[in-house]
């Protein structure tokens, strides 16, 4: 970690001014990703703007939505009564991530911006198109068991590591963004960008912009929902495959569905085709068909091919769990 200046504004406007005016500056909140990457030598901003003193840590609950300030800690979102009751997939997704200590530090804004765990991205000595466009990608011929099978390109297939973002994308979450020139909103799904030929660009956040809140509209198929995470050990581990699933029933028939996948996409992967295929169906065979659709465009490679089958089974299992009230 190189030396840097630390600025600690107490006012959002001031923070936005600082980030716009200071060369080579980055925001820091929980620090669980920023400090980690700085220690790896992947990023070395010369100034960090500490936003933890900004008034962005409240949760607003009303009949239309829940609005979570960007600085709310992962653990606080997970334990919030409205989240547990109305959006259980989100509570469970947060609780499935990292460890209790990290969940106490990490913020929801930072979680959404979290960067890949690809070991070549994290190693400055390796070739990585995400770190330096055109350098090549050492993962293709290297160790890529944890890498993505959906949303990949010839330049990059690193997995997006977040659990919460998967649930947020399933819930049609909206990102509230501010800068010195104003504010805007964008759906989280649209916020993420596929690597394509420019894997360095991961989302729609422009220089000088700050995420101030995440808003989740109340809708359908979110009350009966769950998050299933499959990994190599029981806890404190990134996903091999994960599924955020929600269903709404009319008697026996599915009336609405939400499915998003983690561990398999270069971005949190909303499986709308699978959702559409479920509406109007009943019975387990519908789940398998939906899983097939969700993975139809998967591109498996040598070490991560198993994720295709595992993801299908995880989707079916997650839908069964929702059906059974788990």
């Amino acid at each position, binding site marked *: 970690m190189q030396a840097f200046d*630390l600025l600690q504004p107490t006012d959002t406007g001031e923070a936005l001014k600082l980030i716009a005016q200071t060369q080579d500056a980055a925001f820091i909140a929980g620090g669980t990703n920023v400090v*980690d990457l700085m*220690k790896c030598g992947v990023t070395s901003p010369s100034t960090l703007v500490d936003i933890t003193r900004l008034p962005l840590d409240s949760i607003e609950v009303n009949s239309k939505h829940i609005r979570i300030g960007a600085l709310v800690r992962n653990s606080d979102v997970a334990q919030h009564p409205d989240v547990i009751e109305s959006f259980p997939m989100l509570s469970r997704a947060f609780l499935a991530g990292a460890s*209790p*200590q990290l969940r*106490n*530090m990490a913020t929801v804004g930072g979680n959404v911006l979290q960067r890949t765990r690809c070991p070549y991205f994290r190693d400055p000595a390796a070739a990585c198109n995400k770190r330096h466009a055109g350098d090549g990608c050492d993962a293709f011929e290297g160790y890529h068991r944890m890498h993505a099978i959906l949303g990949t390109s010839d330049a990059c297939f690193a997995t997006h590591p977040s659990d919460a973002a998967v649930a947020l994308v399933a819930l049609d979450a909206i990102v509230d963004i501010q800068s010195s020139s104003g504010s805007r909103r964008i759906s989280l799904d649209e916020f993420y960008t596929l690597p394509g030929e420019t894997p360095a660009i991961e989302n729609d956040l422009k220089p000088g912009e700050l995420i101030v809140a995440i808003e989740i509209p109340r809708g359908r198929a979110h009350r009966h929902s769950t998050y299933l995470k499959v990994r190599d050990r*029981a806890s*404190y581990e990134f996903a091999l495959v994960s599924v955020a699933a929600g269903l709404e029933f009319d008697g026996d028939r599915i009336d609405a569905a939400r499915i998003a996948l983690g561990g398999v996409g270069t971005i949190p992967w909303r499986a709308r085709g699978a959702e559409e295929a479920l509406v109007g169906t009943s019975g387990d065979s519908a789940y398998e068909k939906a899983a097939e659709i969700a993975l139809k465009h998967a591109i498996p490679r040598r070490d991560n091919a198993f994720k295709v089958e595992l993801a299908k089974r995880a989707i079916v299992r997650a839908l069964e769990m929702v059906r059974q009230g788990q």
Partner: protein
Amino acid sequence: MPQLKLKVNGQAHSVELEPNVTLLDALRERLGLVGTKKGCDFGQCGACTVLVDGRRVLSCLSLAMMHANAEITTIEGVATNGSLHPLQQAFIEHDAFQCGFCTSGQIVSALGLLNEGHAHTDGEIREAMSGNLCRCGAYSNILAAVRQEVRRAGI
């Protein structure tokens, strides 16, 4: 260089340090509080767990300068006036450590768990203590010690 006031175990310390000093290194190398350990320095093992305003966090990924107003608790602040906290006593009784290196982190993490109040069953305690690695494999005994304290404290 900026002067930083850190409140650790109820005591105020004034230190001069750069922004790139982690809370862990500030505690160990600048304040001489070496009870908190560095196992990995990347937030992957939990040995550096401290309490910040009663909440368990990893000091290796925390910047010291971002904790000027916080009440920090380290392992050195757990016993009071030489009397072991019942949790520490439980650790000894149940042999919840072997080499001892992860132990400070385990104990402070367990205190954080007690403050959170969400872990009651064995499964919940195991999950809630999974952020603290122990290569000696003392997990069964750590569970026994933490369980004993969860019951005693009536959580």
